[in-house]
């Protein structure tokens, strides 16, 4: 249990360090605000006028509106987290402490990812509050939480895994470029233009979860393209599969990094 307690201690302080970053809140607020103010296809403005649309539909539209660009901020916020220890000369001190690399990495992941997602969750709750007043439907808030959990949270986990680990190998500037390019190519570029995972279960923008919640395909979910086995019809089980795959895919780089670090320590 000592290991778990130590890991939770790392998690707690990683959370506090990340959540105190003013620029994280400002960045998410500016992005979310710009998205909310613009007229964007399939966003909440396209839900039927009040009091018409059900809370499920309205909040799902908010979630996938945010999921188009907010994950860029997630990736940028986490990109240099692990390199920071080297830069601030805390790596040596941390390596001398009892929690092993795996525990520290897990705690860092959980704490920093939770904190990085907090402003996005707050943005969803603000949107839910706005819609509650506008449409007079208190179900907006629980559906806002559900939509965040189904659409935005898996994207965050997926992005976080690669954002924390890839800069260790690629260098941070190159990771940032490839990440933004990947986000467009892998989520928004149609397979007709280029082979791309857009619209597949591995598309981290949350197209399957959003499609299931809305009851109609959105964000290119299930469109024909490479690897047809990953492009089922968007149903509840497909959405669950997508969420699971994204979470597992996001944890893979961390598992790899943790194993390598543990081996280096005992070598």
């Amino acid at each position, binding site marked *: 249990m000592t290991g778990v307690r130590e890991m939770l201690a790392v998690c707690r302080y990683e959370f506090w360090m990340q959540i105190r*970053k*003013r620029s994280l809140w400002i960045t998410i607020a500016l992005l979310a605000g710009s998205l909310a103010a613009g007229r964007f296809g399939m966003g909440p403005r396209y839900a039927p006028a009040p009091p018409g649309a059900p809370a499920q539909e309205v909040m799902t539209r908010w979630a996938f509106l945010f999921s*188009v660009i907010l994950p*860029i901020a997630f990736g940028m916020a986490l990109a240099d987290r692990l390199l920071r220890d080297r830069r601030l000369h805390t790596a040596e001190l941390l390596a001398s402490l009892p929690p092993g690399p795996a525990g520290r990495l897990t705690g860092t992941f959980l704490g920093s990812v939770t904190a990085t997602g907090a402003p996005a969750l707050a943005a969803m709750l603000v949107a839910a509050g706005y819609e509650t007043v506008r449409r007079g439907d208190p179900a907006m808030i629980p559906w806002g939480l559900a939509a965040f959990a189904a659409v935005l949270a898996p994207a965050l986990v997926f992005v976080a895994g690669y954002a924390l680990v890839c800069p260790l190998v690629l260098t941070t*500037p190159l990771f*940032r470029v490839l990440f933004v390019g990947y986000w*467009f190519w892998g989520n*928004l570029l149609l397979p007709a233009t280029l082979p791309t995972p857009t619209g597949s279960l591995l598309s981290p923008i949350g197209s399957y979860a959003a499609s299931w919640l809305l009851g109609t395909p959105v964000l290119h979910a299930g469109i024909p393209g490479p690897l047809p086995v990953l492009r089922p019809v968007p149903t509840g089980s497909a959405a669950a599969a997508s969420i699971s795959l994204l979470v597992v895919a996001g944890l893979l780089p961390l598992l790899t990094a943790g194993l390598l670090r543990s081996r280096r320590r005992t070598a």
Partner: protein
Amino acid sequence: MHSSDVEMWRHEAGRLGWAAGCGPALALVVAAAVAALTAGDGAGRPQVSLVLITGLEALLPLAVAMAATSVVATDRARELHLSLPTRYATVLGRRLGVLAGATSAAAVAFTGVLWAAGLWSGPPVVASPLLWAPAMAWLGGLAVFIALLTRSLLLATTAAGGVWLAQQLFASGFAAHDWARPLYLFPVSRLGAYPGWMTDRLVLTATIAPFAAGVLILLRRPERMLTEEEA
């Protein structure tokens, strides 16, 4: 040019580092790899050419913006620099100049290779810098300005990435309005090189002026950079 000038530029190229300096060139390599995959998938020459042009027009400016923020945001010896008679704005200007020069060389070489291989579908080769240079300067200028203003790498890189992505997504919105079209960063790969796009590129270049002015004003108080968010 004096030998000391050459040595100074060599030093600043060293401070730029491989990661930032080669980032843009590596972005072009990625574009070439994607084009090769596309060709392998059975795509025709026009499609492959479009991918390569996209690398120059879209990926290169993004790479420059990210590299430029890292130039401005991180320097181990910043306090020492601020105590030296050479203005820190000059030091940063040199490093960004090296970045611009290295990127331009890579872009010109890439263009030459494409043209020689018969894969060039952009403007006349002589005018080819209009394809990548204005967007590179604009997005890089935006990123540097925000990095200096906010002293936050997160805000600067997200702004650059967000603007890039938004412009990719909302091409039709830009195309629909005469006033917005000159501000569009990807007129060839996304808007089919509409008539007058080269003139619009010159207009885009002119809009860099506010960023440049902002950067120069902010660098009059370089001590602000002693307290970057992550320090």
